[in-house]
């Protein structure tokens, strides 16, 4: 099982769209995927038309394995399930450690309801906290969308510094440029500079600034399901393929 965290310490960078499209791409490739909506403002559940369950807001529901497994919802796509949770970080901590422990009751419970997951995609909340640190430790891959602007450059720098300060493995960080507008000189220059500065941290795939991605909110579905041939859909596919190539 592989845990892919989609993280950004800055909001509005296309993190949720990335989580949803990436999770969908993995499911399309035949993996069993659980997409966890951890961001209180996040909308991955919304994008997949999954209503949050009342039980999810109850405190410490993770202590009850059954409640947890009952909260999982099948999406409309084969192999893609959603945990539309809005959980406390204490719960999440327990969740991560149990997902890592093969013999935990949680794993057994998951097995009993239709097999374990191959990939867990986490749509993370945007802040540095104990939770973030735990995510950084637990995840195999941390996917970081970066808008090629001066401000984003600074927040990415903060993230790298945080990794250094906490002695976290920077190798897990896989940044990519998001909401890219090629005709903007600033975008082009920032991309050039950052790619040079963080040579090993940036993926080649770029997600363009595209109206198709915004339309996900209308369609409430992954881009490739309603705009299969669009630039946005192929960009997410390229992102998936690049991650697959690196993480396998």
């Amino acid at each position: 099982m592989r845990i892919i965290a989609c993280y950004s310490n800055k909001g509005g960078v296309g993190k949720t769209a990335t989580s949803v499209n990436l999770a969908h791409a993995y499911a399309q490739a035949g993996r069993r995927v659980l997409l966890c909506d951890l961001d209180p403002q996040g909308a991955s559940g919304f994008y997949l038309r999954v209503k949050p369950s009342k039980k999810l807001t109850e405190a410490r529901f993770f202590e009850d394995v059954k409640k947890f497994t009952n909260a999982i919802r099948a999406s409309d796509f084969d192999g893609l399930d959603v945990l539309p949770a809005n959980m406390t970080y204490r719960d999440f901590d327990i969740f991560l450690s149990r997902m890592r422990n093969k013999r935990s009751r949680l794993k057994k419970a998951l097995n009993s309801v239709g097999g374990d997951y191959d990939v867990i995609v986490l749509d993370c909340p945007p802040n540095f906290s104990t939770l973030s640190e735990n995510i950084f430790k637990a995840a195999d891959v941390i996917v970081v969308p970066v808008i090629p602007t001066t401000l984003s450059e600074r927040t990415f720098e903060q993230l790298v510094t945080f990794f250094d300060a906490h002695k976290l493995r920077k190798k897990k960080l896989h940044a990519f440029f998001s909401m890219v507008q090629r005709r903007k000189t600033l975008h082009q220059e920032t991309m050039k500079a950052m790619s040079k500065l963080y040579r090993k941290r940036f993926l080649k795939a770029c997600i363009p600034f595209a109206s198709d991605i915004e339309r996900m909110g209308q369609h409430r579905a992954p881009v490739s399901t309603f705009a299969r041939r669009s630039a946005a859909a192929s960009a997410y596919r390229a992102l998936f393929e690049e991650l697959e190539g690196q993480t396998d």
Partner: protein
Amino acid sequence: MKGAPSQDMLIIPGPMDSVMPRSVGDLTLHLKQDLDQTPFVLLDCHDQSLWSSGRLLIEAGGTLYLLCKDGAVLRQKGRADGHFVRDLHDGPVRAALSDFPALRALTAIGRGLFETRALAALDDLQKTQVRGVVMTLMSDAGQVTIVALQNLRGYDRAYSRVIGALGNGAQKLGDDGVFRSLFPNHVTYRAKPDIAMTTDERAFDAARDIIATYLKVARQNEAGIVADIDTEFLHDYRVSLRRIRSVLSLFKGVFSEAQTATLKRAFSDLMAPTGRLRDLDVYILDRDNYFSMIPEELHVGARQLFDRFESERSQVLARLARHLRSRDYNRRMADLTEMFNGDKGVQPGPNAERGACEFACALIWKRYGKLCKLARSITPETPDEAVHELRILCKKLRYLMEFFAPLFDARSFRVVIRPLKKLQDNLGRFNDCSVQQQALMELVQTQTNTAGRIDARLGLAVGGLVAVLNQRQQAERARVIDNFRHFDGPDVRKMFRTLFHEKEG
């Protein structure tokens, strides 16, 4: 997958539009056209064993659909009508048919029109809460709608609501009613039908019922033999006739002596034209095995041998098919059927009035004693003839027991049948090896020219095969003593006594 989300298969009489509601509570049922009305063939084994195991195999529009009792709908491209399961392409349908009898071809049981639609139960956000497939089968006689539902994780409540709304009056795969409504005229085939028997039945009536039943079974196989669907039709045909002949020879004195003799001759005449075809079937079915028995250098000759078998088989089959279609044959069968189904025509003998049960016990007990006596005398030095004799005794005992099985407790019966069956399998293999050697030798005789010469490659192949068959025969023979010892154990002996001997007193 272990513990996969649950699925259900509901079978609802009637066309799709009339059985599917538009909505269930606040869920809208959305149907999307998948496969337009297309001719379908319902495929099964001759005895409908797929259907009775809760499976439905449909061929429509170049796709095979296998509907399973647990709700799964498996699909794979390809055709299967008239094919053996091993001839299908690899795929989920073939995999799920792995238990289908290897010697049986998939045959058309019925035809009609087939239509499928994808079903989604949507909530107010257009989110699918229950997914499924709706299929309609239409025949000249009726329509049946099959709904395969899939429980999506986290939507159990919606699932049970949809099941609740559709499931009213729904039937299950394997229910006879469903089948009847589509194909009311289809006659279900049973190679060994249950013959109703009561403890106070007369031996005469029992014998007549058994013969009438197996005459019917034999006739149900005629079309399959003529169409050459698979080799089991002829096999079942012969077994039915053999059962009838064993009733005639074992139920001594139930019919008048003169009539018994006439009937014996009549059934022996019916059996005669089938023997050679069966022998050839056995060879050809065992072809791969033959080739694996001998070194590759001898395969050229073995191929010649099998080419001869194949061409002889088509001649023999054509002859038998002509015979089975002939007016004379059909008149004979019709006369016999009438004779055993009606009250007139069969003349009772001195034992006719004996109770069937008491008569059966006496026969079985006597046969059993005879069998044990012979078997116990067999040592490694005994000539093969004794082993052949033992095989025939076993067969007769088994037929007798099976005829009267309905009169006895099924579980106790199994205790004695199982070791007997094992011994019979052993003896059967012994016999096959012996018969095959003999036949190969005869073939060499017919292929030898006046100067006493034979094609060298053919001769080599036959020589190789005879040598291996002889070794196998000896090995099987060596096992007979062991298998009999098992059959002759105290448990089985006690059970025989309890079942067939103590009742008498």
